[in-house]
C-alpha cells in the first residue's frame, strides 16, 4: 500500500485566500469502497475536538490505484494557532474506506510569517 500527497507550495507558509494545488497518488491492495480528498481544519487540546471540512472531493473507486491533481482555495478564516488550552491546525487528507487508510499533510495558514502563538496568561 502506498499513499502520497504532495503540495506545490510550502505547507508551513500558506496565507488565507491562497490557492493551493498538488498531486495525490495511491496504490492500494484492493479498489477502495470510498475515497476522498479533503481540506479541513481541526482543533486539539482540552475538551471537545472541533472539525470544519471546507471542501471534499470524491475520488474514483474503480481501480486500486490512481493519481490526480487537486486545487483548493483556503478560506479567509480561521488561522492556524497554537496555545496551551487549544491548538487549531489545517490539513489536507487523502482518506480511503472511512479512514482505514489515511495520508495527512499538515498545513499552517496564517496572514503573518509564523503561526499565531497564544501566550500564557496568569
Amino acid at each position, binding site marked *: 500500500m502506498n499513499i502520497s500527497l504532495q503540495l506545490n507550495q510550502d505547507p508551513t507558509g500558506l496565507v488565507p485566500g491562497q490557492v493551493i494545488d498538488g498531486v495525490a497518488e495511491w496504490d492500494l491492495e484492493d479498489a477502495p469502497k470510498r475515497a476522498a480528498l479533503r481540506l479541513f481544519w481541526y482543533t486539539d*487540546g*482540552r475538551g471537545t475536538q472541533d472539525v470544519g471540512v471546507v471542501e471534499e472531493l470524491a475520488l474514483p473507486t474503480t481501480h486500486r490505484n490512481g493519481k490526480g491533481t487537486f486545487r483548493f482555495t483556503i478560506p479567509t478564516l480561521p488561522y492556524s494557532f497554537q496555545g*496551551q488550552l487549544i*491548538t487549531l*491546525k489545517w490539513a489536507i487528507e487523502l482518506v480511503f474506506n472511512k479512514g482505514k487508510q489515511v495520508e495527512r499533510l499538515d498545513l499552517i495558514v496564517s496572514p503573518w510569517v509564523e503561526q499565531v502563538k497564544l*501566550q*500564557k496568561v496568569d
Partner: protein
Amino acid sequence: MVTADTNPFRVSRIESLAYRAPGFTWEAFLNTLATHQYRGAIVGPHGTGKTTLMLETQERLAATGLAVTYGFLNEETPRPGRVARRIVRDTPKDTVLILDGAEQLDALTWRWVCWTARRLRGFIVTTHTPGRLPTLYRTQSCQATLRELLGELNPEDLESRWPRAREHFNQNKGNIRDVFFDLYDDCTQTSGKAD
C-alpha cells in the same frame, strides 16, 4: 511551554484509546449482542467508556458485514428528541442503530423511538441508568483501568503522575474522561510561562 499539541492528555490522544475493562473481551461482548438480536442497553456512569465502546463496536460490527449507524446525543445536543427521531426515521431497516445517550430523551420521545426502531435490524442504546432496554453490559471505571490508560498516554511519567491521577479519580467519582482533563490542566500549570 507545554502546548495543546504536545500535552500528553490532549483530546485527540484520549479519543484514540481503545476500550478496556478488567475481564472484558470483544468476543464475549459481540456474542452477547448477537444473542440478544442486537437489542439492548449499555449502561454506565459518565466517563466510564460507553462512547468509546460504542464507536469501536460500530467498526467491529461493520467489519462483519452488518450495516451500522451511530447517533450521538448529550447535554449539549439542541432538541435531542427531534435529533433522535430524525436518526431513527432515517436509518434503513436492515441496519443496526447505535443510539449513544438515550438518557437525553423524555419518556414520550423514548416510546416513539422504541416503537419506530422495532423495524430495524438492531437497536443498541447507551444510558446512565438501567431500565430503558434490557441491560446487555455495564461499563464501570476502576483504578486499574485508569493506570493502564495513563501508562499508554504518558508512559515516561506514569509513576510520578499516578498519585495525582488517583486523587483526580476520587474527586471525579471515577469519571476517567474528567481525570484526563484534570491531568491536562496539571501539565499546563506545571509548565513555564512563555516568553
